[in-house]
C-alpha cells in the first residue's frame, strides 16, 4: 500500500510525530525559500534532503507555507485537525493537493471500486480494479490512483497537477 501511495503522490513524504510533509519534485520552480529559511530541515545537498528532526513542527509548517507551488505541502497526522485548518495555511494539502486528502480512509471491501470526481481536479480511483490503457491491462488491489481529467497531464492517463496550471474548472 505504501508503495502504491508513493507512486500516486508523484514524490515523497516525510513525517514527524505531528505532521507529514509531501514533496513533489515535478512542481518545484526553485524559488529556494525552503532552504534559505530552514536549511536545518531542507538541505538540497543532503540525502534524504528533508530532515524532519531539524526544527519544530511550527517552524516547518511556516516554511512549507512559503513554497509558491505545490512542491511542498503538509498535513496534520491527526485527521481531525486537518478538518479545521484555515486558509491562512496556504500549503496545507486541502488547498494545494486535495487529491492527497482522506488517504487514511479504508478501501472499499472485496471486489469493489470507489470512483471520486474531485472539483476542478482529477478522478480518484480507489479499491480493486483493472485498468486498461494503451493496450495494457493492469490489476490494482487496495490501491489508489488519480486520473487526469483536464487533458493536460504530461504523464497520461495519470494526474500530474497540470489542472492547476491551466486553470481547469468544472
Amino acid at each position, binding site marked *: 500500500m505504501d508503495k502504491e501511495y508513493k507512486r500516486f503522490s508523484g514524490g515523497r513524504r516525510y513525517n514527524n510525530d505531528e505532521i507529514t510533509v509531501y514533496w513533489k519534485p515535478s512542481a518545484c520552480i526553485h524559488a529556494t525559500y525552503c532552504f534559505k529559511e530552514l536549511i536545518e530541515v531542507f538541505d538540497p545537498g543532503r540525502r534524504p534532503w528533508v530532515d524532519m528532526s531539524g526544527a519544530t513542527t511550527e517552524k516547518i509548517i511556516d516554511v512549507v507555507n512559503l513554497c509558491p507551488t505545490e512542491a511542498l505541502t503538509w498535513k496534520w497526522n491527526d485527521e481531525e485537525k486537518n478538518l479545521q485548518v484555515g486558509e491562512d495555511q496556504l500549503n496545507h494539502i486541502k488547498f494545494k493537493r486535495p487529491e492527497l486528502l482522506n488517504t487514511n480512509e479504508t478501501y472499499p471491501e472485496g471486489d469493489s471500486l470507489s470512483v471520486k470526481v474531485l472539483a476542478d481536479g482529477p*478522478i480518484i*480511483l480507489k479499491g480493486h*480494479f*483493472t485498468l486498461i490503457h494503451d493496450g495494457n491491462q493492469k490489476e490494482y488491489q487496495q490501491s489508489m490512483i488519480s*486520473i487526469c*481529467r*483536464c*487533458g493536460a497531464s504530461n504523464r*497520461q492517463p495519470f494526474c500530474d497537477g497540470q489542472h492547476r496550471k491551466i486553470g481547469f474548472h*468544472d
Partner: protein
Amino acid sequence: MEENKGKKSHAIVEVIESGPLKITGNFTLTDVKKNTEDSPSEVLLCLCGKSGSKPYCDDSHKM
C-alpha cells in the same frame, strides 16, 4: 448475499484512446458535490476537459 450481487463483477476501468474513461462492473461514483451513486452499470467520464456535461463525456473530444 454476495451471490445476489453476482450480476456485478470486478470493476474494469478503460482509458479509451483519445476518448473518455469507461468504467464498468462493481463500483460507486461520487461527483464533485459529493453525491454518491451506487453501482451504476456503466459510466463514461470526460478526460479531455471539454465536455459540457462534466464529469460525463458528451463526445466533445470528437470536435
